[in-house]
Each structure stands twice: as structure tokens, then as C-alpha cells.
């Protein structure tokens, strides 16, 4: 288990002339984390190259080219963040939080409406979806609030404050409407609170409230005549419980995704794949890309992707324990929670065990905002890792 560590060249603690790797900070980075993230992006580009040739008439590499560009930009962003001391973000928490809420709100004013929901800005080269980057911003801001409010008010007051701070942007995203991302914000809030040490009893109460609220939204509110969820949202949330044969129905789509993955068997159908090539599975380059992998590359490919995610999340949890300060612990915990939630919900949705919520698969689903935001999150993890390593050496900055 530690073989990789002992093999890695360690910098001489009192080196007078740092080498090129030292100058770049490579020895202080988490190589496994960086490589697993890069491998997932590469696998995404590879899959898109094979599966989306016919999707945009006239430009077989439409999605491939763009995803590759997003991936490269994201990796550059990741490296730049590695070189920044993440602790600065704690000081900037109010600014970050304000920016988060304002950028999400601006979508309502200037946003570009796609399929009945305003989520993104139309920029010259791609459409930017602020709620994606907002996931990382929420982690950075919320962790800061938790640290600095640790001695103010009773425990209950603190719990309610964290919840409000986390759920306000979640509510804004929900109104766009983007249920999936709102749920991710909720998961981030809970993860930060959990690592931050909020009492078990409080979580029990939150859990009870959540169950009551769900029941109210899904059962009571429609019965009274004031539905909270849009029709398609409710249908998508509940349809995995009762798959149907109606193709316009969400349950049907999920059933088709399940057939796609199952038909891949052990080694996949390759170019003979029909489910994800012939429009049986919708959104195959975004939310249902895991079904494409399952059908084309079979259990081998799908398990490889899942293992890469397991590796990614394991490294994130490890960084939680390494962090030089509590802020880093909370940030890394929030990011680990965010990744775990997204991967489980998206893959679970593809496998037919979770509802369709429109949550992209981090680093795999086509989309610039999502890929960039996830790589930024990985960059923040790297920064925590690097600061921990440097502090062990007795150097806090260079």
C-alpha cells in the first residue's frame, strides 16, 4: 500500500538549489489524485470520440474537440490552484459567498434558457453555468463560516446558521430550476457540517425534517393543489420506482439506460452498440454517459471508471486527514462529499437504482462548466496537500 510512496523521490530537506520538479512543486502534489482525475478526463474524451460521431451532422468531433479543450483548461486551472495557499479563501469567505449568490442570481436576468430552465450565460465560446463552479465556491465559503463561527452562539444556533448559509444558494439553484445541482449543494452543506462536528442529534432532526418535507412536497402539496416541483421533476424523482413502457416517460429512459448497460455484458459491444447509438438512451453525452461506457466497454470499462472514482475519493478523504489546519480539513471533507454524492447519484441513476436528477458525472459528462469546476475542486485538494507537505518541512511558503 505504501509502495508508491517509498518509491517516490523525496526532496532533500535542505536543498540549496531546487531542481525543476521542486520549482514546479511536483514533489508536494498528490500524484495519484492528479493522475486519476486526468485519466477520467481522457476516458471521457475517448468515449465521446467513439460514441458521438453522428450526433452533430457535419462535425463528427464536435463534442470531442470541446471536451478536450475544457479538460486541458481545467488541468491548467488545477495546477494554478495547487500553487495558491487555500487558506486565503478562508479570509475571502464573505466575498466568495456573495459572488456565488450573485452569479447564480444573475442567470435569472441574463441567462440563456435551455429546455425551459435558465442555468447558464452564453459566452462567445461556450455557455458558462455558474452553479457548477458554485459547488466549489460553496465548499470554500461554508468551511470558512464554520471555522470562524465556531465559538458564536449555541450549538443549535450554529447548526441552523450553517444550514441557512448552505440552503440559500441551493434554493436559488432550485428555482432556475435545477433540482440536481440544488441537491448537490445540500449534500455539500451536510458534508461540511458533518466533518465540522455538528452533533449526531442535530443530524437526526435534520433527517426527520427532510423526510417530512419530502412527503409534503411529493404527496401533500400536490394533493392540496400547490405543487412545489415541476411536473417533470416529480415524475423523474419517482419514476425509478415504477419503470414504464412509455418512451416519453422518465421511467422508460431509465429502463433503456439499464438495458444499455446490461447489454454490454463483460467486455462490451463496441461499435455494435445500439442502445446508446440509436437514441434509445437520451442525453448520452452528458447525464447518461455511464450507460455509453457500460454498453460499449462492458463490465471491464465501467468497473475501471468506478475504480478511478474510488481512487479519487479515497485520496480526497486522505487529504482530509493530512491537512495542516481545520479549514483544510473541512474543505477537503466538503469536496469529498460532493464527489461521492455526484458519482453515486449519477451512476446509480444509470444503473436504475437512483432517480433521474440531472446530476452530471464529474469529469466524464460532456460540459465545460462541470469539467472545469471539478478540476478546480481537485486543484483545491492539491493545494491542501501541498501546504501540508510544506508545513511538515517547516516551510510555509516559497
Amino acid at each position, binding site marked *: 500500500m*505504501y509502495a508508491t*510512496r*517509498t518509491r517516490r523521490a523525496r526532496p532533500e530537506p535542505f536543498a540549496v538549489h531546487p531542481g525543476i520538479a521542486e520549482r514546479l512543486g511536483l514533489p508536494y502534489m498528490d500524484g495519484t489524485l492528479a493522475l486519476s482525475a486526468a485519466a477520467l478526463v481522457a476516458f471521457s474524451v475517448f468515449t465521446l470520440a467513439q460514441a458521438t460521431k453522428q450526433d452533430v451532422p457535419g462535425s463528427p468531433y464536435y463534442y470531442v474537440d470541446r471536451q478536450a479543450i475544457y479538460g486541458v483548461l481545467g488541468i491548467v486551472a488545477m495546477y494554478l490552484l495547487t500553487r495558491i495557499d487555500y487558506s486565503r479563501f478562508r479570509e475571502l469567505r464573505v466575498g466568495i459567498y456573495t459572488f456565488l449568490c450573485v452569479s447564480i442570481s444573475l442567470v435569472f436576468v441574463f441567462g440563456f434558457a435551455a429546455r425551459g430552465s435558465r442555468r447558464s450565460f452564453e459566452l462567445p465560446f461556450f455557455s458558462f453555468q455558474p452553479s457548477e463552479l458554485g459547488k466549489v465556491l460553496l465548499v470554500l465559503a461554508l468551511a470558512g463560516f464554520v471555522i470562524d463561527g465556531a465559538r458564536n452562539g449555541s450549538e443549535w444556533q450554529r447548526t441552523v446558521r450553517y444550514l441557512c448559509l448552505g440552503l440559500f444558494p441551493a434554493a436559488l439553484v432550485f428555482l432556475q430550476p435545477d433540482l440536481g445541482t440544488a441537491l448537490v449543494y445540500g449534500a455539500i452543506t451536510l458534508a461540511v457540517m*458533518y*466533518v465540522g*462536528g455538528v452533533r449526531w442529534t442535530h443530524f437526526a432532526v435534520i433527517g426527520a425534517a427532510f423526510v417530512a418535507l419530502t412527503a409534503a412536497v411529493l404527496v401533500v402539496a400536490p394533493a392540496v393543489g400547490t405543487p412545489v416541483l415541476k411536473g417533470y421533476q416529480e415524475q423523474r424523482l419517482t419514476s425509478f420506482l415504477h419503470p414504464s*413502457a*412509455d*418512451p*416519453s416517460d422518465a421511467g422508460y429512459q431509465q429502463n*433503456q439506460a*439499464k*438495458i*444499455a*448497460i*446490461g*447489454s*454490454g*455484458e*463483460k467486455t462490451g*459491444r463496441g461499435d455494435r452498440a*445500439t*442502445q446508446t447509438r*440509436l*437514441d*434509445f438512451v437520451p442525453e448520452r453525452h452528458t447525464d447518461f454517459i455511464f450507460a455509453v461506457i*457500460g*454498453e460499449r466497454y*462492458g*463490465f471491464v470499462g*465501467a*468497473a475501471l471508471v*468506478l475504480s478511478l*472514482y*474510488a481512487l479519487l*475519493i*479515497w485520496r480526497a*478523504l486522505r487529504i*482530509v*486527514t*493530512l*491537512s*495542516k*489546519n481545520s479549514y483544510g*480539513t473541512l474543505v477537503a*471533507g466538503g469536496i*469529498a*462529499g460532493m464527489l*461521492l454524492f455526484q458519482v*453515486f447519484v449519477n*451512476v*446509480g441513476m444509470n*444503473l*436504475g*437504482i437512483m432517480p433521474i436528477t440531472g446530476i452530471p458525472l464529474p469529469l466524464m459528462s460532456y460540459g465545460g462548466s462541470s469539467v472545469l469546476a471539478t478540476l478546480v475542486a481537485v486543484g483545491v485538494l492539491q493545494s491542501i496537500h501541498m501546504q*501540508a507537505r510544506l*508545513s*511538515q518541512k517547516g516551510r510555509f511558503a516559497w
Partner: protein
Amino acid sequence: MYLRSDERGPAVSRRLALRLALFGGFAVTLFAILFLRLWLLQVLDGEKYLAEAKNNRTRSFRTSAPRGEILDREGKVLVANRTSLALQVNPRKLPTDSRQRRAELAKLAQLTHSALPRVRRTMHKELKLAPAAPVTLRQDVGHDLVYYLQENQDRFPGVEVQRVFVRAYPDGTFAAHVLGTVGEINGEELKEPRYKGLQPGDKIGQEGVEDTYDRYLRGRPGLTRIQVDALGEPTPNGRLVSKPPAPGKNLKLTLDGPVQAAGEAAMAERGLPGGFITMDVHTGEILALGSFPTFEPSLFTRPLSQAQVNETYRNPAAPLTDRAIAGQYPTGSTFKLITALAALESGNLQLNEVIEDPGQFEIGGEVFKNAGEAVNGSVSLVSALEVSSDVFFYNLGYRMWDSGQLQHWAHALGIGRPTGIDLPLVNQTLLPSKRWRDQLFKEGGTDRPWSPGDNIQLATGQGDLQTNPLQMAIAYATLGNGGTVVTPHVGKEVTDAAGRVLREFDPKPRRHVRIDPAYRAAILEGLHDAAQNGGGTSFEVFGNFPIPVAGKTGTAQRTGHADQSWYGVLAPYPNPRIVTFVTMEEGGFGAESAAPAARKILEAYFANQLAHKASPEEESEG
């Protein structure tokens, strides 16, 4: 061990350590669920899902896109679309029993006024091109028949009625030759790169601008993909994707409605086969272009009856031929403009040179006479053009007979060479030359080599010369604008449905010819005198025309035919904006048939100025 303790960060509190252990355990559980589920789906139940996937079938249907509209330069619609009902037979849904099948097809043949063998032939042909696709038996079926079929659906299994777009021509035959027709793509056209992606049954432009601008007009068909069950029946609500058809772009032509209408009316009034063209001398924009007799383009939107086939394809008057751009005629004296320019520019004629015209010209025992045996006496270039002295030009033709200078200049002005016009045509014009004739003689195609007589004939637009109003109009325009050989075109711009201009057509001139302004002025003066000076050949037609013009009559001799009437006119004189050319087969003297038609076209073009100038004593006689 040392390394491990080095790795550890600040001591993690016991409470946090517990929470992180639980977090890790939670993550492991979630991943275990995913892996197990994946294992269940792909490894344990994989075969079942593979079978289900193979059972999933789709079928695609193309929905045709309406072609773009064609408009005149003012935006008036010349070609639109209407929806029509097409009767289709789905071969896979016909009764399997051969007797029932035969009975149904026979009944269908009867209902569509066809015969059983013909229906079978159609189906056989179509099915070879696109197996298992529905076969269109008849387009544009009436509503009565549709209602009848719908009420008796059970008696006609496999019969479907589809809405399709067909061309509509609000003005009937108006500009039919320019507009062209639309028809189903054939097997050979399918292989051409310009029709890549089309399928049998798709419609393409076959003639006219429908053909040349097909890629703008055509649009892109929509695609509907539906899920079908194992029997090929659509499953309820089984629509997977639906890409709506993209309508074609609109094409605006350079045609000027009133000018075109005047030309067509003038041709129809005289009733002789012929053609006309009016073109902007500076830009090459064609304002009017037509041929008589004409045809009804809407005929081609439905299958032709035998009578209609005879009337269009087998008619000796060849209504489908556009005589203005595809005619092959000698031009008579309208060619003298070219002869004059060639002689001046090549130094074979001085501007003020006077040549004696005793009424005939003799060379090598052959006698060439003036038309109508006229004797003009001493004539200079200007007066020779005014009275159309043949002997004057016989002299010029003789002076240049061996040097090829006449051919050089005629060629430079565009006679006998491709024009670059944006209409599909096979260029078969001929500018006779020494090289051509000698070659032909060598091959045994003629009884004698090139002789002075050939060039003398050519100098007056007779003999072997074969050209058409389009090429003559370009030659006249080149002199009129001072030396630019324009590219004639009828396409003006492509617009989208909202009228936004997507592309403008402004083709570059073919080439430039250096013309001495003094020579140009002299020739134009001669043409002006011919039209509007007392002794001019077309004075009786244009003498009282309020706008100064420069026009030349032509009377071409064609073996086996009566004389062909020609008229070419540049207006206004001395700085022309437009050129008009008219020819009428067997129309006699130029001033007799073609010139009056040309006048009507000019009246339409200058309608505003004429209305302005109109005073009681100058009213046009019509």
C-alpha cells in the same frame, strides 16, 4: 516507520477520526452497491439485457422540407409552394395473398385513372431504388379520393396518404424558362457530389434557376425516428428523435416583373418562335429573359398525361427550349456592330473612310448584293450603320478575311464562347473561322476550305454563324459600357424566411476589352441614327420614341426557313444602361417583328420616364 510519521499532518482529534472512519465506511458501502449492481446487470443478467437491446428497433422517416420561394427583384413571389396529397402504397402492409393483392392494386389503378401493369411497373421501379419504402403511386390526388380511401380503409390495407410540398406558380407561364422545374432525383443524379445525402424520391431542381440554385432552394429534410416492435409496427408514443425539416432559402432574381411581362406579351402577340433578353450593361443583371412558345411549369408537379407529353416534349415548336440563351441562329445585320469594331480596332477601317456602295460586291465571280437591292452610294461608317449598307461591311469582311481579326474581336466580345450565365445550358454556338472551316474540310465535312465569301457572310451576320440573343446582348453591352464583358446572371440574392440577405450574387466580369472611346462613340452614333434618324432602318419603329436609343435591325437568312427578324438596342443613348435583344424566327425584316417587340420592352423599362415626359403630341402609339 519514520516515513509514515513524517506523512501524518497535525494530530487528528479522536472525534474527527471516528467521523472520518464512518465517512470512509459510507463511501465504501456506496461503491460496493454500485459495483454489485453493475455486476448484476452486466455479468449475471447481461444476456437478458442484450436480448432486449436487440429487440429494440427503430425506423426512420424523412419529412420533406419545402423548397425556398423564388422572387423577382421587387420581391414579388414567382414560385411558391402548396401542400398536396400523395397516394402511397406500403408494400409490406399489402395483403400477402397474391389474389387479394392483385385485386387491391387493380382497384387502386382504377381509382387513380391508371392501369394495373403501370402500377406494378411503378412499384417495381421504386422498390428497386428503395426497398421496403412506401411507393408513391400518384401525386396531387383529389380530396374526394382521399375521403373515399379513408372511409374504406379496411378494404385498402397498406394505402397511405401523405402530405407533400409541390411547386405553385401564381403567374402561370411567367418566366417559365428562367424558373425551370422541379422533379424527383434520378439514379445518375444521386451519384453526383452536389446531391450528396439525398435519397430516391427527393426532389431537386431540374431546369432553370431551380437547378443552378438548387443547393440554396432545397432545404434539408427532417428526420423522425420511431421505435417499432418486432413486427415493424410503431409502438405507442414511440417517437425517439424528431429533427424538424429545414425549409430552403428564398432566391431573389434580377428579373424586373413589368419588363419581363412586356417581353412575354410582345412575343405572344406576334406568335412567332423566338426569344428576348434585357440586361443591365454594367452589372450583367438580367432584367427580362424569355422564349416563345413557352410552357406551363406547373405541369411538372404531377405526372404528365400522354397528350401533355406530346405537347411539351414532342412538339416541333419545342416549348421547353429557351431560345434566348440556347438558340442557334445567324444574327443578320445586328452583327455589323462587331464587324465595325473589329475593322476599326485592327486598322482595316479609318473612322472617316468613305466606301462606295454600288449595291453589290463582287469577289471571285461571286456577287453579294445589298438587301432589297438598295444602292447607297458613298457611305461612311456612321451612315453605313444607319442605312445598314451590306456592301460597306462586305468590304470590311473581305479586308479581314485571311487575318482572323474579325473572329478575334467577335470572340473577345463573347460570340461562340461560354457566357458564364447562371442557367443550365449546353453551349452549342459557333463562330465560323478559317481554322474551323479548314479542319472541317480536311475531315470531309464540307466541300470547300475557308474562302473570302465566308468572312463576307460573317461580316453581315449570315452564313455559318450560330449564336443567340444572350451572346449578342453581351457583345452589345461590352461596347455600351466601354469594354467590360459582364457575366450575365439572373440570381440576385439568397434570403432567409425573414428576408435577411444571406448571400448576394455579383459575379465578376468575364474580362475587359480595350475599346477606343472614339470608335465606340462612332458606332453608337451609327446605331442611334439607324433607330432615330430619318433614313434609319428602324426609324419607323423608334423614330418617335421619346428616349434616345441606339438600335440595330437584323434579317438573318436561314436555309429552309423564311428570314429571321432580329433587333438589338442599347438605351439610353449615348450612355446606355440596358441592352435589349429580340429575335423571332421567320419574322422577316428586323424592323418588322423584332423591333416593335423591343420597343414594348423599352417602354416597360422606361415607364416612369415616359409617363413623366408624356405630352399630347408625343404619346406612344403602342
